[in-house]
């Protein structure tokens, strides 16, 4: 047997429409480990990658939003199963990015549990948030939730996997599709998580994952007319203001989840699902 072997390093690419292409721009940025060595060259996603992702997300929306709550729950559960099977890979990626082993193990376990949590909500949130409304006319009046459409997610900067999962899961369990910009400084797990999604019967285009610079892409997330909601997890008041202003053109939902502790039990709840839902109220005539 040969004593020396050249290790095969993984090329981290973006996840777009169920495929793993390189960024169309051909640009990269080096990702450094805590000791300064280069871990990987990450794709520096461009606004055109973002545009293509929105097209993919839009075309996946009709099918995904029409799938049954039961199926969506099954698929989320499947993602959790796949993540469990690749537990060690994610732990070692987190450690590589400078987190202690103990914390890394905890973060991966919490991510799996979070997926199970939202899988369970798939066929229950509708009952919690829907209502039959009393009206003073001969109508049966009821309100139900419908997914808003394509959701842009600027994932939390300081939580590589758990923050990512905690924001994607409530969006897709509600029948939305999404375009996600991974943490700029901790992007490794995002692309490995895309491989998990790819192996979990999540239809192509339902989740699209980009890596790149927030300062470059944030405005695109906020201004794109075919994005129905934008979720952001970092930034100061000034950034928050800019996002809201740019989002006003097509009256996007702007959902700020800044400074959230994603490891807390408090950061998982069905309200996160309802935030990217629309309420449809129906007036149905009834006999006098």
């Amino acid at each position: 047997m040969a004593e020396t072997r050249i290790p095969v390093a993984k090329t981290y690419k973006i996840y777009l429409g169920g495929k793993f292409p390189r960024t169309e721009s051909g640009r990269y940025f080096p990702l450094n480990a805590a000791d300064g060595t280069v871990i990987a060259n990450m794709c520096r996603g461009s606004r055109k990658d973002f545009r293509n992702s929105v097209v993919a997300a839009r075309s996946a929306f009709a099918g995904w939003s029409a799938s049954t709550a039961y199926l969506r729950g099954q698929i989320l559960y499947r993602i959790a199963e796949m993540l469990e099977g690749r537990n060690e890979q994610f732990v070692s990626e987190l450690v590589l990015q400078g987190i202690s082993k103990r914390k890394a193990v905890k973060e991966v376990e919490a991510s799996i549990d979070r997926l199970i949590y939202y899988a369970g909500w798939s066929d229950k949130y509708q009952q919690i948030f829907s209502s039959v409304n009393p009206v003073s006319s001969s109508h049966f009046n009821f309100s139900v939730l419908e997914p808003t459409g394509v959701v842009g997610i600027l994932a939390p900067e300081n939580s590589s996997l758990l923050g990512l999962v905690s924001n994607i899961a409530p969006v897709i369990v509600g029948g939305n599709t999404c375009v996600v910009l991974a943490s700029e400084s901790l992007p490794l797990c995002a692309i490995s998580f895309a491989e998990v999604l790819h192996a979990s019967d999540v239809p192509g285009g339902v989740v699209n994952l980009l890596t790149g610079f927030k300062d470059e892409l944030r405005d695109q997330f906020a201004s794109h007319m075919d994005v129905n909601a934008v979720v952001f997890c970092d930034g100061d008041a000034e950034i928050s203001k800019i996002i809201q202003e740019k989002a006003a053109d097509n009256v996007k939902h702007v959902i700020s989840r800044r400074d959230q502790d994603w490891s807390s039990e408090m950061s998982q709840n069905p309200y996160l699902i309802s935030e990217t839902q629309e309420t449809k109220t129906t007036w149905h005539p009834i006999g006098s």
Partner: protein
Amino acid sequence: MSIAAVPNDVRMPDMSQVALVDEVGVKERAARFQTRSIKKESKIEALQMVLSMIDLTTLEGMDTPGKVKQLCQKAIHLHDAVPDLPHVAAVCVYPTMVGVAKKALGDHNINVASVATAFPSGMAPRQIKLEETRIAVDDGADEIDMVISRGAFLQGEYGFVFDEIAAIKEACGKAHLKVILETGELGTLDRVRRASVLAMHAGADFIKTSTGKIQPAATLPVTLVMLQAIRDFYYETGKMIGMKPAGGISNSKLAIHYLVMLRETLGSAWMTPEWYRFGASSLANDVLMQLQKQATGVYQSADYFSKD
């Protein structure tokens, strides 16, 4: 069948002399057009040119007068939010809808094109094809899109196909004739070239790739072969023939690449709606969204554009 209707100056070409096509070379050349980058002002001009060349099309069994009227409204009011937009070249419909389209378009200077000759299969006796053509023209069609008999062509009955095109041309009267080769059923680029030559000699004003009902429809290599045939026909006879790729061109970027190919193969004389068309239904909205993006800097959503 009598060919007395064929004018004397129309002569069938010697089909054994039609140039053969270098398939690999054509594909490489076609691929290279897609590497051109057209930006900023050039892009806006190209997009407006694409709009002006579109034959806005609805050819479905479920078409109704209402649907055709809606399409005509779209042709007239592409996107009123953007001032000074060009209008499309024509609206393309089935013969039974020509009257409806003609009336709906009024005097907006948009042509009515009608498919005819038992579109899309072309499997009907010649009298019926001729009659259908006459009816469409009588109802006001400015342009006729005919299909060739691919079965006869593939059997090598070039004379039959030639006579058929010439007879339909005669029946068209003043209306322009576009000849659909249905390249997806011809199989090889050699046959595409041969069918192009045959159609041009028989009196086609335009040659057109596809019905849109067969895959593959228009592709860059097929269109390139047809453009080259048009160029050589022009050198030979001095007559300009128009080109219409149709089917499968649904985004602006690809449409611009088609224009690049047109410019580099036939030159700028052909770059008007008089000599070049796109047969498409969903292309117009994509172009409009791109134009709006250029104007506002913001990526657009189909939610804010009329349905096509």
